C-alpha cells in the first residue's frame, strides 16, 4: 500500500489547471494530510503546457519526487511531458470523448471518463476538471466529501447554486469510476487525520510576514514570479491602514517604497530578474541615505528575460554586489515557506535596526509551491518588532548639534544613527545619495567621506556581532561529509537524507538562510572530508563564497535546467559527488 500519492493535472494554460489543483490540495489538507505542490507553467496566458502537481502523505514532505501515480490529462502533451515520472501502476484519467486520441502506454491504467458530458449533466462543461477530481478521489479511495469545503471556498462567491453543481460534478466523476472500473489493484487508501493544516505558498508567507511585521506601504510592478506578493497584500494591507501602489515601473516602485520608508512606514517592494536590475539604480541611494526598507527578489531564470517561469538561484551575486560603488546591505534568503514568513519579519527588523536596505532573496520554486503546515508554524504571538534608534519629540534633543540641527547621520560607535521621521519636532533634515556629513549635507571633504563610509560599514560589523547569523542543520552532525545549501533547496535536501540513509550514506546538511552577513563555516568545512554545495545556478555563486570564506575547495551540485531539485535526484547526485574527485579549478 502506497503511503504517498503523487497526483497531477495537466493541460493548456487557461484550462483552469491551477485552481483545480488548488482545490484538490486544499481537500487533502482538510483531511489532515501533508501536501506539497509544484507547478509547471509556461510564460503565456492561454495555451502551452501547464501542470499542477501534488504530492501528499500523512508524513511531513518537503519536496517533489520523480513519480506520478495519478494523472489527469487534458491533453496528450500532459502524458508525453510526464512519461518519465509515470510508472506501471500509474492511472491516467482522460476524456475519451474529446477529439484527441489518448496514447497511453499499455502498462498504465487508462481511466476514460467522459469529463465534459458528466460536467454538462451537473450543470455546465466548465466543471469538467471537478469531475476529474471526483474521479481521482475514486481511484485514490479518498472521500469525495473532503472536496466540498474547498469547492465552497473556491466558488462560494459565485452563489450556492454554483457550489452545489460543483459538488455534484465531483460525485458524478467518483460514481463513474466506481461503476466502470475495478481499481482496487491500485491500492490507494488515503489515510486521514484530525490535524488542522494551513496550505500556503512562499509568496503568501512573505506577504503575511510583511503584514505581521508592520509593513504598511508596498509599491511594486507586476512581474513573474513576484506578483503574487503584491496580489496577496492588495485587499489585506488596507485592513491595517496600509496601501499597495501598482507603480508604472520598477524604478518608480522602489522610489515609492523609499519615500514611504523615509516617511516612517515600514515599506517594501518585490520584484524579480529584470526588475531588480532597474531597481539597482535607486538601491545605492537607499543605502547611502540609510533608509530602512525591504527589497524582495523572487529569483527566476536569467539573465535578461531568461526563462521567466522557471526556477533558478542566479541572483545571489546581484544581491551581494549589485549597484555602483560600495554599499552595505543585508542579504537574507529564506530556506522554506515558514522561513519566508519569519525571515520577512526579520528583514524589516534588520532594516530598521541598522537603517540599511535588506534584500530578501527567495526563488520561484518556493514562491509557487503550496505546502501544508500547522497554523502554529506562523505563531503571531512570537512576532517581535524592533524599530531601532527611532527618536521622538522627547528623545531627539541629545542628537541636535549646538545650532539645534538634527544629526541624522551622526557618527556613532555602533555605526547606527538616530532616525527622525517627518513630524518629529526639530528633526527636519535632508537625506541624499551624495556623500554627506553628519547633518546630511553634501561634502567631498576626505575625512568626512572616510568617516561616513566607515560608519555605514560599521553597522554591518555591529550586526555581525549582535545578531545570530545562524544556520539550520539536518542529518548527522557527526557525519564525515558535509552538504551546504541555501534557499529553497533545503526541502529536497532534507528528504534526500532519507534516501541516502537507505543506502547507508551518512551526511551532515547545513542550510544557510543568511547570505550577508553569513555564518562562518570555516570550522564545519575543515572538519568535513567532502564538502558539497548545492544550488540552482550554473556557476556556483554560493560555493564561491564558501571557498572564499574557508579557503577550501568544495564540490558543487548545480542545476540550471529551470527545474528545482528533486529529493531522489539529489540523493543520487550527492552519492556521485562523494565518489568524485574535487575538480581542479
Amino acid at each position, binding site marked *: 500500500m502506497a503511503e504517498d500519492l503523487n497526483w497531477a493535472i495537466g493541460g493548456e494554460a487557461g484550462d483552469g489547471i491551477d485552481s483545480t489543483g488548488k482545490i484538490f490540495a486544499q481537500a487533502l489538507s482538510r483531511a489532515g494530510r501533508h501536501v506539497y505542490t509544484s507547478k509547471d507553467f509556461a510564460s503565456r496566458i492561454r495555451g502551452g503546457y501547464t501542470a499542477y502537481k501534488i504530492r501528499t502523505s500523512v508524513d511531513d514532505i518537503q519536496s517533489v519526487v520523480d513519480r506520478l501515480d495519478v494523472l489527469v490529462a487534458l491533453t496528450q502533451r500532459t502524458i508525453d511531458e510526464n512519461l518519465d515520472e509515470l510508472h506501471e501502476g500509474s492511472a491516467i484519467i482522460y476524456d475519451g470523448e474529446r477529439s484527441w486520441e489518448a496514447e497511453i502506454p499499455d502498462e498504465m491504467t487508462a481511466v476514460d471518463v467522459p469529463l465534459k458530458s458528466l460536467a454538462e449533466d451537473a450543470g455546465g462543461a466548465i466543471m469538467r476538471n471537478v469531475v476529474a477530481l471526483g474521479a481521482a478521489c475514486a481511484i485514490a479511495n479518498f472521500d469525495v466529501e473532503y472536496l466540498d469545503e474547498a469547492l465552497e471556498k473556491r466558488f462560494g462567491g459565485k452563489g450556492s447554486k454554483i457550489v452545489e453543481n460543483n459538488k455534484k460534478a465531483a460525485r458524478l466523476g467518483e460514481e463513474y469510476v466506481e461503476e466502470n472500473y475495478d481499481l482496487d489493484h491500485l491500492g490507494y487508501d488515503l489515510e486521514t487525520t484530525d490535524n488542522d493544516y494551513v496550505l500556503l505558498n512562499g509568496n503568501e508567507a512573505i506577504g503575511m510576514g510583511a503584514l*505581521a511585521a508592520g509593513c504598511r506601504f508596498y509599491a511594486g510592478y507586476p512581474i513573474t514570479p513576484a506578483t503574487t506578493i503584491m496580489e496577496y497584500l492588495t485587499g489585506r494591507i*488596507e485592513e491595517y491602514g496600509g496601501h499597495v501602489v501598482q507603480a508604472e515601473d520598477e524604478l518608480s516602485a522602489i522610489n515609492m517604497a523609499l519615500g514611504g520608508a523615509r516617511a516612517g512606514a515600514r515599506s517594501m517592494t518585490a520584484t524579480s530578474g529584470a526588475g531588480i536590475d532597474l531597481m539597482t539604480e535607486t538601491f545605492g541611494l537607499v543605502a547611502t541615505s540609510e533608509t530602512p526598507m525591504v527589497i524582495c527578489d523572487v529569483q527566476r531564470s536569467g539573465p535578461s528575460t531568461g526563462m521567466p517561469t522557471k526556477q533558478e538561484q542566479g541572483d545571489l551575486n546581484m544581491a551581494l554586489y549589485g549597484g555602483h560603488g560600495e554599499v552595505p546591505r543585508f542579504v537574507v534568503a529564506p530556506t522554506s515557506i515558514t522561513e519566508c514568513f519569519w525571515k520577512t519579519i526579520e528583514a524589516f527588523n534588520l532594516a530598521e535596526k541598522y537603517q540599511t536596505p535588506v534584500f530578501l532573496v527567495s526563488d520561484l520554486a518556493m514562491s509557487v509551491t503550496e505546502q501544508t503546515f500547522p497554523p502554529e508554524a506562523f505563531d503571531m504571538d512570537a512576532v517581535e518588532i524592533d524599530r531601532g534608534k527611532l527618536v521622538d519629540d522627547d528623545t531627539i534633543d541629545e542628537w541636535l548639534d549646538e545650532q539645534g540641527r538634527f544629526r541624522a547621520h551622526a557618527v556613532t560607535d555602533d555605526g547606527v544613527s538616530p532616525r527622525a521621521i*517627518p513630524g518629529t519636532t526639530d528633526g*527636519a*533634515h535632508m537625506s541624499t545619495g551624495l556623500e554627506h556629513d553628519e547633518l546630511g549635507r553634501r561634502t567631498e571633504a576626505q575625512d568626512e567621506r572616510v568617516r561616513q563610509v566607515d560608519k555605514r560599514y560599521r553597522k554591518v560589523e555591529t550586526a555581525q556581532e549582535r545578531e545570530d547569523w545562524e544556520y539550520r542543520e539536518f542529518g548527522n552532525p557527526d557525519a564525515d561529509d558535509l552538504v551546504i545549501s541555501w534557499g529553497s533547496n533545503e526541502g529536497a535536501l532534507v528528504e534526500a537524507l532519507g534516501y541516502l540513509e537507505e543506502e547507508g550514506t551518512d551526511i551532515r546538511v547545513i542550510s544557510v538562510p543568511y547570505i550577508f552577513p553569513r555564518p562562518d563555516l570555516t570550522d564545519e568545512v575543515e572538519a568535513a572530508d567532502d564538502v558539497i554545495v548545492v544550488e540552482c545556478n550554473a556557476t556556483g555563486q554560493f560555493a564561491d563564497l564558501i571557498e572564499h570564506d574557508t579557503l577550501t575547495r568544495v564540490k558543487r551540485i548545480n542545476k540550471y535546467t529551470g527545474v528545482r531539485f528533486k529529493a531522489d535526484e539529489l540523493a543520487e547526485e550527492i552519492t556521485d559527488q562523494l565518489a568524485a574527485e574535487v575538480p581542479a579549478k
Partner: protein
Amino acid sequence: MSSDVRFTDFKSDKQPTWCPGCGDFGTMNGMMKALAETGNDPDNTFVVAGIGCSGKIGTYMHSYALHGVHGRALPVGTGVKMARPDIEVMVAGGDGDGYSIGAGHFVHAVRRNVDMSYIVMDNRIYGLTKGQASPTSRSDFETSTTPEGPKQPPVNPLALALASGASFIAQSFASDALRHQEIVQQAIEHDGFGFVNVFSPCVTFNDVDTYDYFRDNLVDLEEAGHDPSDYEAAKEVILDSDKEYQGVMYQDENSVPYHEQHGVTEDMSEIPDGAPEDAMDLVREFY
C-alpha cells in the same frame, strides 16, 4: 504646527552654489514663502528633489527632504504622501529631470493625482552638465550636443499634463516673485497634484529664454480674465505655442486626491509592538 513660522525657517544655512542671477533663487524663495503662507513648518514638510541644478534645492531649504536620483523624485513624493497623508509634500525638479528621464513618472503622478505640489524649474537647457539641449529647448536652439538645434519640437509639459488628466496646471516666472509665490500657494492648497512649470532662466547657458524674453512675452492669465475651471479655455491656452503664459491654466474644483480615493487616512508609521491583534486570522485564511 506653529503659527509664527517665517519663510526663512525653510532656509538652510547652506549657501546656494547656483550661478549669480539664476532663476532658481527666485523659484526657491517663492516656494519657501508659499509653504510658510499656507501654514506649514519645516517639521511637517517633506521636500523631494531630483538631480541637476534644481535638485540642489533640498540642500538650500530646511525641511524633511530627500535628494533622490535623476528623474525619480515624483515616485518618492508619492511614497511619502501615501505613508503620511498628514505631511505636506513638495517635489521640485528641472525640465530634464521631469520631462526627459522622469517623463514616465510625470505622466503617472499626474494621473494618480497624489496630493502634492510639483514645481519644475524649467530653464530649457541642461545647466549642471554645462549646456546641452533639454526636452523643452527650442528646435533650433544650438548647444554643444545639438550644434544645429535639436530639430525636434520641445515637449509641452502643460499639454502633457492636460493629456494625462491633470487636476491642476499652472505656469509661473521666477522673476515675478509675487505671482510665482501666489501660484505655488494655489498648487499647495489644491486637493491633488498641483503642477507648476516655472520659467527659471539659466543665465549661463541659455541666451534665448532670458529674463528679458519672458518679461517681454509673458501674458498673465489672471489679468487676461482666464477662468481656470474652464477646460476648453485651458486647452486653448495650453496648446497656444505662440505666447508664454503665467497663471493657473486649469484647476479641477472637484479633484479628489489619490489617498482619499483609496481611503488612506492613517499615519502608516505607527505600527504595533508585535503582530497585529487579530493576525492569526491571516493564517487561518489558509485553511
